[in-house]
């Protein structure tokens, strides 16, 4: 077995036993990236020197018998919309091609404090808008299971890097499914925490009321370890909640006998691929075998979730992305005769098609005369969906759905039809609208050998139950151990 094939917790265990050094782990990944990423194309920027320096510092601490954090010395990589001081943070956009933040995101700070070697920054859909990572200005990341297929998105680079063993884990961001859907497409675990559990400070905003940072990992234990490291109150984010620090790992092994799982029938409708449906039904059997009870129920408002999501997220995006005007930083057009032309040309040239589409949709939805019909109505739907989830959690501890109605599709499939692309998010957007946590974990393969993911949704701030439920499934099946042959 190669070092890069280890899970994060296995690597951390070997480090603590001094069976391996952090430098060895880091070197193994650097060499793996140098060999494989030419094919996968998941990294936009690499920071190998910094990673090695951190690894050496950790090795010194270990040699000096100093206490180290649980994931110290275990290398990872970060989605390129999370700010890293002194390292360019592009959001995969021409607009921020040369943007170097002078500050770290809260999560980046936490990683550095924990002595985690950071290997670099990962590709994504431009400004996290997309479900295939095809809208990146720089490159098209390949699905490690099939280079002709997309890795999902928007955290496609983060999912592909974990799947192809280029990092022990990665961080992504999830606004409507951007961690879970690529995790599902690439056969890894992806967790979107409860809104407010992880600080958004330093995450370049797409839709402020929906965005959350979370881990993409090789298994549930790793995801729990990463969450323990990045969760917690941050005075720099008003929406970050004040909760005591929690260890999400220790409770994973508790059994789930008597646990009530609900399946919303609406999530398994017409558009769901038969093989995905079968995999979910098999998962149900696994859970029943573990002593959980599974019941179908209706969540009728969920059919409005997708339009509501696209209105709210685009409205917020139109405002969040207005700051990219060429005045202070980022791209500025070279062709303008006055201020208005500078704005127009900078934004026309600096943003890609999908970003411009969402800015236009969002601007329209907020315009006077249309606000009530679109934005306000979408907020009303949001309230209804929240109540639906509250009602469901009155009966069930966890809700189970497919993560995506299909497995990974071929490049170009939906690029000419954005609405088809938006449907890839149908199972995931409600979760962001309600603010609840959800995890995607591998639960099967289709006939082409592409991974299928299932989504477990938990109650707000009850990541413990959610992860325990995911862990129980993972321990009873072999899907988490599967890796692409790349």
């Amino acid at each position: 077995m190669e070092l890069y094939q280890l899970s994060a917790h296995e690597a951390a265990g070997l480090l603590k036993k001094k069976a391996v050094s952090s430098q060895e782990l880091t070197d193994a990944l650097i060499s793996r990236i140098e060999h494989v990423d030419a094919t996968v194309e998941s990294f936009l920027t690499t920071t190998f020197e910094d990673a090695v320096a951190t690894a050496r510092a950790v090795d010194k601490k270990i040699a000096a018998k100093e206490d180290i954090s649980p994931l110290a010395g275990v290398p990872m990589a970060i989605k390129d919309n999370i700010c890293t001081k002194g390292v360019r943070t592009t959001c995969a956009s021409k607009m921020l091609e040369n943007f170097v933040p002078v500050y770290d995101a809260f999560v980046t700070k936490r990683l550095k404090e924990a002595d985690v070697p950071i290997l670099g920054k990962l590709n994504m859909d431009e400004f996290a808008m997309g479900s295939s990572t095809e809208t990146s200005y720089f490159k098209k990341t390949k699905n490690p299971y099939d280079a002709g297929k997309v890795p999902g998105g928007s955290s496609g680079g983060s999912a592909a890097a974990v799947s192809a063993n280029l990092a022990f884990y990665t961080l992504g961001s999830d606004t409507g499914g951007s961690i879970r859907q690529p995790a599902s497409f690439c056969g890894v675990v992806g967790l979107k925490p409860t809104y407010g559990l992880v600080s958004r400070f330093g995450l370049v905003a797409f839709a402020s009321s929906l965005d959350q940072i979370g881990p993409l990992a090789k298994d549930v234990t790793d995801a729990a370890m990463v969450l323990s490291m990045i969760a917690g109150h941050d005075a720099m984010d008003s929406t970050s909640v004040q909760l005591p620090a929690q260890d999400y790992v220790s409770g994973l092994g508790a059994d789930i006998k008597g646990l009530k799982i609900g399946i919303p029938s609406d999530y398994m409708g017409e558009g769901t691929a038969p093989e995905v449906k079968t995999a979910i039904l098999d998962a149900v059997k696994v859970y029943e075998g573990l002593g959980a009870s599974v019941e179908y129920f209706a969540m009728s408002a969920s059919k409005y979730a997708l339009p509501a999501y696209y209105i709210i997220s685009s409205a917020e995006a139109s405002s969040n992305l207005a700051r990219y005007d060429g005045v202070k930083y980022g791209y500025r057009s070279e062709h303008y005769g006055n201020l208005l032309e500078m704005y127009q040309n900078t934004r026309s040239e600096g943003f890609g098609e999908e970003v411009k589409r969402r800015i236009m949709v969002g601007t329209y939805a907020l315009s006077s005369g249309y606000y009530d019909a679109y934005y306000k109505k979408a907020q009303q739907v949001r309230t209804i969906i929240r109540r639906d989830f509250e009602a469901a959690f009155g009966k069930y501890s966890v809700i189970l759905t497919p993560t995506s109605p299909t497995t990974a599709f071929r490049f170009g499939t939906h690029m000419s039809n954005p609405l088809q692309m938006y449907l890839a998010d149908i199972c995931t957007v409600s979760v962001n609208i309600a603010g609840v946590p959800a995890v995607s974990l591998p639960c099967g393969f289709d006939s082409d050998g592409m991974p299928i993911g299932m989504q477990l949704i938990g109650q707000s701030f009850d990541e413990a139950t959610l992860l325990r439920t995911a862990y129980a499934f993972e321990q009873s099946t072999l899907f988490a151990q599967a890796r692409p042959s790349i």
Partner: protein
Amino acid sequence: MNQIKYETVIGLEVHSELSTKTKAFCSCTTEFGGEVNTHCCPVCTGMPGTLPVLNKKVVEYAIKMGLATNCAITKSGKQDRKNYFYPDLPKAYQISQFDLPLCTQGHVIIHTPEGKKRIGITRIHIEEDAGKLLHDVLPEKSLVDYNRCGVPLIEIVSEPDLRSADEAKLFLEELKSILECLEVSDCKMQEGSLRCDVNVSVRPVGQVEFNTRTEMKNINSFSAACRAIEYEAQRQIRIREEGGTVVQQTLRWNDEKGESVTMRSKEEAHDYRYFPEPDLVPIVVSDEQIKAIRNTIPELPSAKRERYMSDYGLGEYEAGLICLSKDMSRFFEGCAALGANPKSVSNWLLGDISRMLNEKNLQAGDIHIKPEDMAAFLKLIESGVISNTAGKKVMEEMFETGKTPQVIVKEQGLEQVSDTSVLDGIVKEVIAANPKSVEDYKRGKTNALGYLVGQAMRASKGKANPQMLGGMIQEILSGM
């Protein structure tokens, strides 16, 4: 032809920078006058990924102003984004309040020559200031200074209750005195910490409904507000009398030229696309908080004015003027507490001291005279040690140097001469030297006495006690 009598209808939007130590959403200082772009950080310059965190003092100060102007306080409020592009606004939206302002439905009382008048306050909301464009540094290019960006503001919107430029000025002065009294804003107009937009329409006297209004921006002083209102009212009246239509628009006031120019028409009005700011949590204010803030409100200018009239016997006008300025009333009360005659203090304060402040373009806060020196000064006059005329000199010197009056009197030899033996000599000399005036007096021209006293004062170099001189001259003349 001109038979219609018009009245002007005015509503004001007053922007006041709050005097919090740090900005509204980050920990940068709000201090004025720092080197360009040194009082800013990634948050207030809207760098990618940064988030605002509301400064609690901003809410406290705004509520304080709301309570002082009799407003209802919104207990469950929120903040909204006002979206527009401009280089001084680095996020391309201003965090403001749209439909749930912190304070609503208040009023203040102004004192017009016709008596008290109630002016409604529609709302007070909190928002952040923008940066400042610098056009004169580089040729063909504009630069931006973000020091002011994110400084907290309150916007106070009045009802259209004002009917003249004078009333508007009284209202602005009243607001300013309340803001200063509460210590929530330093109200320095020259530093832009108090600004206003005026909305003006005209209608025939007796008409109930309002006519089309225009909005004027870029007004930097109270007197500019008056000029702008008068100009705009006349412009609208002229349009109406010529049979034209007043068009709703936003104008920019040019105070140097004394005229307004169109900024944008109604059709060009911005669509700010307000929506709730998702990066901030709702503003929830409890009754306990409101009560606690209410307890920190000191005596307001209006109450103080009443007290000055009843306790110190000042006239309404004098009391009103002194109470407009916190520093002036502090000085006044300091002197009164030391036993100085309140009316005399008021006279000097509103007379010579105010004149000198105006001449030197200073504020009441720049008065360096100590109340105890003022009290001593008045005692010197009352006890006849110095004359009123000499008093003016002493006052000027006190104002300039801050020296005590006793020292000034001694240094300049200004003691009033009341010694009869000295005065007697002067009186005799003057009578001897002015036989014609003596003759006049005897023939009944009593004002000749004044002339003789004046001559005697001159001979004493202004030091003689004029009352004594008058008595002595009269005595001698009537004996002649």
